[in-house]
């Protein structure tokens, strides 16, 4: 019977599958390249070493938040609280390390711990309270955490962080921003985690079919809690980088960033229905947005028009992806 079904198996030979893989992986990258080429021709300031690192520095915070929302999205969830958690962990770090004078190490630890803790609460709300969709629990958390971030110092910003903290957000090694290195490290680690470990596979499985995952013996709740805790932790890291970048923690930091981060993840090819998405796609999605913002600034486009253009590019980027995938299905 093996031979029977052979030719429903089609022209999908090794080489065409390689080609398809290539496209799938590098489709968004292609869009990014086109964007870069257009900008290089439009403004002489764009394609300079300086500006390239400028972009990576500007992209770093959204890049980390995008990673933070990638995980829940892979499980067919979402995390709307990352922007607020960024602010809250930054404020706590300020209080601990500056106001209480306990120094950078304890500050950083508390920053990450706060992020992870509130992320864990998101996970609990989803799994233990059995809220139907994390949209609602993380929307609630978005408000709760923002409120706390405001209350904690009565809305006063905190400045005067230790050099080591500033270094993470604004230092460079040679011309390379430290924040960019942080991003690279996180992305490599996450890629490895998602593709090489059992838990990584389970995350995709849960996003694909939660009930099937459960019936396959996967402890779905445990994994979901881990996912939301990691998401919060990453928001904490983003808070750390943000503070380093502006040398101040302020309670309205990161407002609305969650939508940018989600957009980056989806431009990068992930599906809101779960189970589909990659770390590299996310990186490219982030860069598309960052490059676009930077380029439009360099072209001196007003911020109003920038909004409209970015909106159009979001749709365009995803549409290109749709076209590409359709092309694939047709020819393969």
């Amino acid at each position: 019977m093996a031979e029977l079904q052979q030719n429903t198996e089609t022209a999908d030979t090794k080489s065409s599958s390689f080609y398809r893989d290539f496209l799938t992986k590098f489709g968004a990258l292609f869009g990014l390249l086109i964007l870069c080429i257009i900008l290089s021709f439009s403004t002489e300031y764009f394609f300079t070493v300086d500006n390239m690192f400028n972009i990576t520095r500007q992209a770093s915070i959204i890049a980390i938040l995008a990673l933070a929302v990638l995980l829940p999205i892979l499980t067919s969830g979402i995390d709307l609280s990352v922007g607020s958690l960024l602010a809250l962990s930054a404020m706590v770090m300020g209080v601990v390390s500056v106001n209480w004078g306990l120094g950078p190490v304890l500050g950083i630890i508390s920053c990450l711990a706060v992020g992870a803790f509130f992320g864990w609460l998101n996970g609990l709300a989803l799994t233990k309270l059995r809220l139907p969709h994390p949209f609602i629990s993380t929307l609630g958390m978005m408000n709760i955490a923002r409120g706390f971030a405001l209350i904690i110092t009565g809305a006063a910003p905190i400045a005067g962080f230790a050099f080591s903290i500033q270094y993470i957000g604004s230092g460079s090694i040679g011309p390379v921003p430290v924040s960019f290195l942080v991003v690279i490290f996180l992305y490599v680690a996450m890629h490895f985690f998602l593709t090489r470990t059992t838990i990584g596979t389970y995350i995709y499985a849960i996003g694909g079919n939660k009930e099937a995952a459960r019936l396959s013996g996967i402890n779905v709740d445990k994994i979901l809690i881990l996912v939301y805790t990691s998401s919060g932790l990453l928001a904490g890291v983003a808070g750390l980088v943000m503070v380093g970048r502006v040398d101040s923690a302020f309670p309205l930091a990161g407002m609305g960033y969650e939508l940018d981060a989600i957009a980056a993840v989806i431009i990068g090819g992930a599906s809101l229905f779960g189970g589909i998405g990659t770390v590299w796609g996310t990186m490219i999605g982030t860069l598309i947005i960052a490059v676009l913002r930077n380029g439009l600034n360099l072209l001196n486009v007003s911020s109003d028009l920038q909004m409209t253009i970015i909106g159009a590019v979001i749709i365009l980027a995803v549409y290109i992806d749709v076209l590409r995938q359709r092309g694939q299905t047709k020819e393969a």
Partner: protein
Amino acid sequence: MSEPLLQVIQVKKSFSGTEVLKGLDLDVEAGEVHVLLGENGAGKSTLIKMLTGAYSMDEGEMYWQGEKVTFETPSDSMNVGIATIYQELNMIPELKVYENIFLGNERHRFSMLNRKHMKRKARELLIRLGQNPDLIEKRTGSLGIGLQQIIEIAKALTTDAKLLIMDEPTSSLSGTEVEQLFASVKELRKEGLAIIFISHRLEEIKELGDRVTILRDGLKVETLPVKETISDKMVELMVGRTLNEKFPKIESERGKEGLRVDGLQIAMYPEPLSFSAYQGEILGLAGLVGAGRTELARAIFGADPKTQGSISIFGQEMTINSPKDAIQAGLAFITEDRKGEGLVLGQTLRFNINLGSLFKYKQAGVLKKRALYKNGEHYVQELNIQPAKAGMKARFLSGGNQQKVVIAKWLSTDAEVFIFDEPTRGIDVGAKVEVYRLMNELIEKGKIVVVISSELPELLGMCDRILVMHEGTLTGDFDRETASQERIMRAATGGK
């Protein structure tokens, strides 16, 4: 007798106050194939889900190799050595086939996933099940449900289970795959594995089973040795009355040509297809899994794009580019995948039954609620859907009863041409006869009936004419007199 491998005593389970299992007993010995037989909704799948920890028991006790156990989650039961193939597919569509096969049971090397090893093992398993080993790299969601069912079986075989539970594993398989599966099962039994096997196909039970436990209404009726019990006896115990004939074939005159498919070209297949179906006959469509029967039906119905060809109904050529066109042209298509394509699970039976025929119940743009209610009740009664509550959500019905709801939806549309794709998949013997009677009624009313089925006995029993498909081409056309199991199989495997 040594102590049973698995024993359950007086299990009870209720949903929303409805008692589904009412104190049921079961014992399974090592090295036996233990069959569960019961009508749709008797509680077979519910029992299975409690054995695997997918549901918790309300009351009752469970013993594994003589020791009392409670399973909180599926992984608890997997840990003691129970592998399960559930009635509904549990594949992750986005994962590759080999990833699904090892899901929850991954192989590691230095605590990292060992993909190489998993792929090798997956290939071996597919070969053993008679499949193309290259499938392992495919996205599971891209495969038809027949193949997915085979992947599901492969998945169960990766574990070192002592008990393998199979809830209707064959309902979407055709003869050849079933044979492959049975060969594997028999081998496993020789190795001392116990198997719980659920099927509504009596001949399978006869072939494979050692003992059969018959369930009725959430209670055990009896456990009997299969070899010594005649099928009619089993059916009688199961439905509580004797069933006179399995295939209530009626004789009727062949009438006008009702459906004509001319040079239909389906995107993925090279050759155009042509055939006709006539009034007064039931036309069968046979073939192996993946032969393209579903694709053909979908193309006719406008569910998939077709590149060329025409479709005529009672001599009139119809333009059909969408299911909507098809329905307006008088077609009805009872899809094979009731969960994915047939039902809105979160809505009531009434809602589902009326969904395709709302246009009949409008007055000045406003829906006539009372008429809709009446129609819902009517079909619940007519098809004997259980529980007979038109206001119940479709999700909570047993598989077989869900299937009836899908059929009801299409009967309600007043179509002229009915294409049934695996209409009796998962339906119990009693209900099957009811479906056959429905087909007869349609014929008597002058409607056209085309039936796609992987159960050859069913086609042979009910059809006046049988077309056979192989790899997207029509390879056989037999009438009732010339059709035989052997001839059809030959055509289905491509040998003319």
